[in-house]
């Protein structure tokens, strides 16, 4: 037992990936990104570092937008959103994401909700973190069936794009020039071979793959205290789950 749960590791990793940002937007049904952002906010506050703003989309309480649904996109285009999270039913080795479905469009066999704002946010947010807990060949495919938004673009204005990819198993960097992921670290309990087997696309890998940095005692303490409290306002079920897993991990 490492003394922390896989979810706690992911949350702490998200906080590290967000380090340095001032404003992050997260979806209303994205408790893990929200938790990571809250952890960063709390520890920055304690270290008297830059203030972190978190916009929880669709929330009434944690929403300081006042100009309707368009404000997130305007705010992003103004360069005022530093980080955002995107997932996908499928993600391929060039960081293309598919939020639409599998099979031949439009009569896709499996249909997901749709692109939402991905075909805009992915281009304009400087630090997009691809986040998908399920790490399987079903998700990480050689080539997505539908490109909701491409990982890289040539010849267009694109200040944003993929910064890193985080899954339940591993953390990847993305090289925009090479259009390739490279494995940065594997989470406690997994090996580089596990990751390779669960990933449907090819990627770079260092000779020795380190383990994903364990959350410090201080981070775990903030996460289990203040952040869990904060989370329970917007994500009560998730906060309870974290509390439960903590008991198991302990």
């Amino acid at each position, binding site marked *: 037992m490492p003394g922390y749960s896989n979810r706690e590791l992911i949350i702490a990793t998200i906080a590290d990936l967000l380090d340095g940002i001032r404003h992050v937007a997260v979806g*209303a*049904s994205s408790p893990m990104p929200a938790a990571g952002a809250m952890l960063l906010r709390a520890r920055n506050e304690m270290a008297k570092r830059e203030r972190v703003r978190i916009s929880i989309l*669709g929330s*009434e309480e944690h929403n300081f*937008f*006042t*100009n*309707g*649904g*368009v*404000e997130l*996109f305007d705010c992003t*285009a103004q360069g005022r959103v530093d980080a955002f999270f995107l997932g996908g039913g499928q993600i391929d080795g060039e960081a293309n994401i598919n*939020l*639409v*479905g599998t099979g031949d*469009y*439009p*009569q*896709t*066999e*499996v*249909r*997901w*909700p*749709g*692109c*939402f*704002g*991905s*075909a*805009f*946010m*992915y*281009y*304009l947010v400087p630090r997009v973190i691809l986040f998908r807990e399920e790490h399987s060949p079903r998700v990480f495919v050689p080539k997505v069936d*539908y*490109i*909701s*938004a*491409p990982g890289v*673009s040539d*010849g*267009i*204005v*694109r200040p944003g794009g993929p910064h890193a990819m985080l899954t339940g198993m591993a953390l990847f960097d993305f090289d925009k020039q090479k259009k390739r992921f490279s494995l940065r670290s594997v989470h406690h309990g997994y090996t580089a071979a596990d990751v390779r087997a669960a990933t449907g696309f090819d990627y770079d890998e260092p000779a020795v793959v380190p383990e994903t940095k364990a959350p410090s005692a201080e981070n775990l303490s903030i996460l289990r205290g203040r952040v869990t409290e904060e989370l329970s306002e917007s994500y009560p079920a998730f906060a309870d789950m974290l509390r439960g897993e903590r008991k198991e991990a302990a």
Partner: protein
Amino acid sequence: MGEIVSLEELAAEVAPGCKLAVPADYCGVAMSATAAIIANRPNNLHVVCVPVTGIQGDMLIGEGLVGTLETSAVTLGEAGGAPRFQDAVRKGAFKLMDATCPAVHSGLIAAQKGVPFLPIRGIIGSDLLKTRTDWKTIQNPFSDDEDPIIVVPAIQPDVAIFHAPEADRFGNVRIGRRRELLTMAQAAKATIVTVERISEESLLKTEDSAAGVLPALYVTKIAVAPRGAWPLPLWGEYGVDTAEIARYAAMARTPEGFAAYMDGFARRLREAA
């Protein structure tokens, strides 16, 4: 303008083939009115979701009333995928115009401003462009270098419909900070609104209250529908009925289950009110 009518008279504004704009779940969805619209069976609707939809869109699809669906997503949120939408997509039951949220906003803002199009960044390289042939790529006329940019055409709904906490007897409607409702209404030829209640006092009376108001000038008809967004939430008033949405999600997995659900929907709406 801003005439207060019965729910039935309001629903009659939605004619077969009309382009109908509906808001996202968090913005105030006119569910009571949706039941009244369904009773009229206006088919071949072109539903524009601003910018996404949930149970409302799924119901209209399940009832076979949707000819074209223009949306950035359809989802029941925590209750999962929208079953009638997924089934209809598989069957190719309607024309599907997948979009991305800011492009829907831009199309409506173009109509609001009376211009034929608005430019928007991003999108290039997305497969959206393969089917959204109504979106064009042009050269940025202000760049000397090659700088392609997408332009989306104005979206002018025939009818915009939503649910709000209150209107006043002059036809003004409180929309708070849900500014997309103002954009929708200004973009649309007609706007119909259901409300929890009618205020005798003008909502434009003070500077503070006026800030969150859609003026009567843009409102065609208003009907009172207590708890008119149920089972969806209404901001500042009541939360989502999670159990009811889950019940719908489970039942609507099959056409028969959907039919059974819809059979009692209007009745339960009245009970919930």
